[in-house]
């Protein structure tokens, strides 16, 4: 037993910003886990590293990313203006494909948002402590993705000035909205999702804004961060209520995130249309949403951890774990594709069968096989540790995942519609340049907000990361416990 207990100095003597001079009796090597924060960084270092990103002079790379984003965002709003002034005819949809890119983009963006809530809520309930390094950025991603998503349903209705009919307000004829329709449920699901995501994000931010306030050098920053941190002092009586509220919000967000994409999927699956009318849709959509969301988190954080030198906080282990979640959800998605085909055959419904054979071999087969490659084959590569630990490969694969998930929505929306029951109702959908620019423009919107977020708000939850280090544990020698702790 004695040789199983390895005594090793965790800190190199003399290294700055590290807790020095404490020897920790480590567990046997096979039970050891890579720590959440590498190199045994001190609690103060964590504040400096994270808050430092939002302080000081704006780095040049930020402007190189920000200016194109703003230009693209402007393009998006110009296209929307054009659409509103001319009409939805400037887009591709028309008989028989009446739902085009707008709905594809809506579902895609809202799906991306799901990873943020999964990380902040579900992983919190499951006590996955590694979430602390990535939850803030992922939640910000959620909020901005839902904003991009929210644009499309509003502008696709054509007469945007009637958008308020979606809300429970009587229209000109005193008629109320019709709550038996899933489209109405969707309004409640998406708006609740956005509001609760913002609440959750803001609540997590309060202690970190207090960190920013206490570090602020000039009056404007002191005032602004002071205002938004609401006078947070770090009092334990406050922490006690805060932690309870955080737990409850996580508990409420978990059924919320599962319900949002389920309800989005009902927009499709209640339609008596071959290729859409399926009970598998809710779980399959949720898995796909988490899959694409993790793809996006990886695409965002892999470059960021490098540019901002946060490799000690967003470690290789974090990336690997995210790859594993992507693998798990990607496999669920692949399984769902298989079941869809099986049921199309097993149901004996000739229309359903035709819809699926047409998917794989019809005029849109290129879209279908892009989807299969990116969503079924690509995530399987994450079984290999060599791939999971190669940042460049993971980055490329994560982008492929997002492309694949966009095509999944394209397959469901467009392919299901383009061949109706009668050949006279057949057609081929093509997007117009307005479709394309509007979609690309939403990336501008997304990145504009995301870059502003990086510049003004701590991009990693400072107090939460501190809380998962051994230095924060009063029963750990590094936390000051005597006699080696327990």
């Amino acid at each position: 037993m004695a040789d199983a207990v390895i005594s090793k100095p965790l800190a190199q003597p003399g290294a700055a910003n590290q807790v020095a001079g404490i020897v920790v009796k480590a567990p046997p090597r096979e039970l050891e886990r890579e720590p959440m924060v590498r190199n045994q960084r001190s609690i103060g270092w964590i504040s400096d590293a994270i808050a430092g990103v939002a302080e000081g002079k704006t780095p040049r790379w930020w402007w190189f990313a920000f200016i194109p984003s703003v230009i693209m965002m402007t393009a998006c709003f110009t296209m929307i203006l054009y659409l509103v002034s001319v009409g939805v005819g400037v887009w591709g949809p028309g008989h028989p494909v009446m739902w085009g890119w707008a709905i594809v983009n809506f579902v895609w963006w809202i799906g991306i948002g799901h990873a943020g809530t999964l990380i902040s809520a579900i992983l919190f309930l499951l006590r996955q402590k590694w979430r602390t390094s990535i939850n803030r950025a992922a939640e910000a991603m959620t909020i901005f993705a839902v904003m991009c998503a929210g644009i499309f349903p509003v502008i696709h209705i054509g007469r945007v000035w009637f958008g308020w009919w979606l809300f429970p307000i009587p229209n000109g004829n005193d008629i109320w909205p019709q709550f038996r329709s899933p489209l109405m449920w969707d309004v409640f699901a998406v708006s609740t999702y956005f509001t609760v995501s913002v609440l959750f994000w803001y609540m997590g931010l309060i202690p970190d804004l207090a960190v920013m306030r206490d570090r602020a050098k000039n009056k404007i920053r002191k005032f602004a961060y002071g205002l938004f941190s609401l006078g947070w002092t770090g009092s334990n009586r406050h922490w006690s209520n805060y932690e309870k509220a955080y737990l409850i919000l996580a508990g409420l967000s978990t059924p919320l995130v599962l319900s949002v994409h389920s309800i989005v999927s009902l927009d499709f699956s209640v339609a008596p249309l071959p290729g859409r009318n399926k009970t598998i849709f809710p779980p399959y959509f949720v898995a796909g949403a988490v899959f694409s969301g993790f793809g996006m988190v990886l695409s965002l954080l892999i470059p960021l951890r490098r540019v901002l030198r946060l490799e000690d906080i967003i470690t290789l282990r974090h990336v690997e774990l995210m790859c594993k979640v992507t693998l798990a959800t990607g496999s669920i998605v692949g399984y769902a594709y298989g079941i869809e085909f099986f049921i199309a055959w097993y149901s004996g419904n000739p229309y359903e069968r035709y819809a699926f054979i047409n998917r794989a071999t019809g005029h849109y087969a290129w879209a279908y096989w892009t989807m299969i490659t990116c969503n079924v084959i690509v995530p399987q590569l994450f079984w290999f540790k060599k791939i999971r630990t190669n940042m460049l490969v993971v980055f490329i694969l994560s982008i492929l995942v997002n492309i694949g998930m966009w095509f999944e929505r394209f397959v469901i929306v467009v392919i299901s519609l383009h061949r109706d029951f009668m050949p006279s109702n057949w057609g081929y959908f093509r997007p117009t340049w307005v479709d394309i620019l509007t979609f690309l423009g939403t990336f501008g919107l997304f990145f504009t907000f995301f870059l502003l977020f990086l510049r003004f708000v701590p991009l990693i939850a400072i107090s939460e990361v501190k809380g998962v280090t051994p230095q924060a544990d009063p029963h750990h020698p590094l936390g000051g416990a005597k006699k080696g702790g327990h």
Partner: protein
Amino acid sequence: MADTVNPYGIIAEFDNPADTMHAAEKVRDAGFRKWDVFTPFPVHGMDKAMGLKNSKVGWFSFLGGVTGYTCGMLMIWWMNAVDYPIVVGGKPMFSPFSAFPPSYELTILLGSFGSLFGMLFLNRLPRLYHPLLKNRRFALATHDRFFIVIETADPKYSETETRKLLESLGTRHIEVVEE
């Protein structure tokens, strides 16, 4: 005029969570009531060390959730079955099943508002002024230091005895903070 500033309380600074927690246990056992521990992150076990009861935030969320669900159901029933009933596809004017998803979302929405605002209410936040936030050293409470503060308003507070107690607890710095 500055001669008569009232002291707000006495603050003791600590280096690590373990020392803070042991000190908090002693302060709790000494019977103080108006005192607090300030940490850069929530320390597990500190609630017990301070003798705090379970937080009441849950009640606010519960109230919000119940309100949301009831309002959702009543709203949909009243709009679609009472105020302006319209037959759609021969479906019933009101069904709890189709009314469930929006009501479910409203449950979560108001429950979340309940927990955030309940937390702020219980913590008496937002608070735009706090004597401790004027103290330069205390700014480290959000960085890497731990503080125990005993207010002068506590009935057991005594300028010499309280300081002696804190000094015996292994603090590295003691200071009196003014109102």
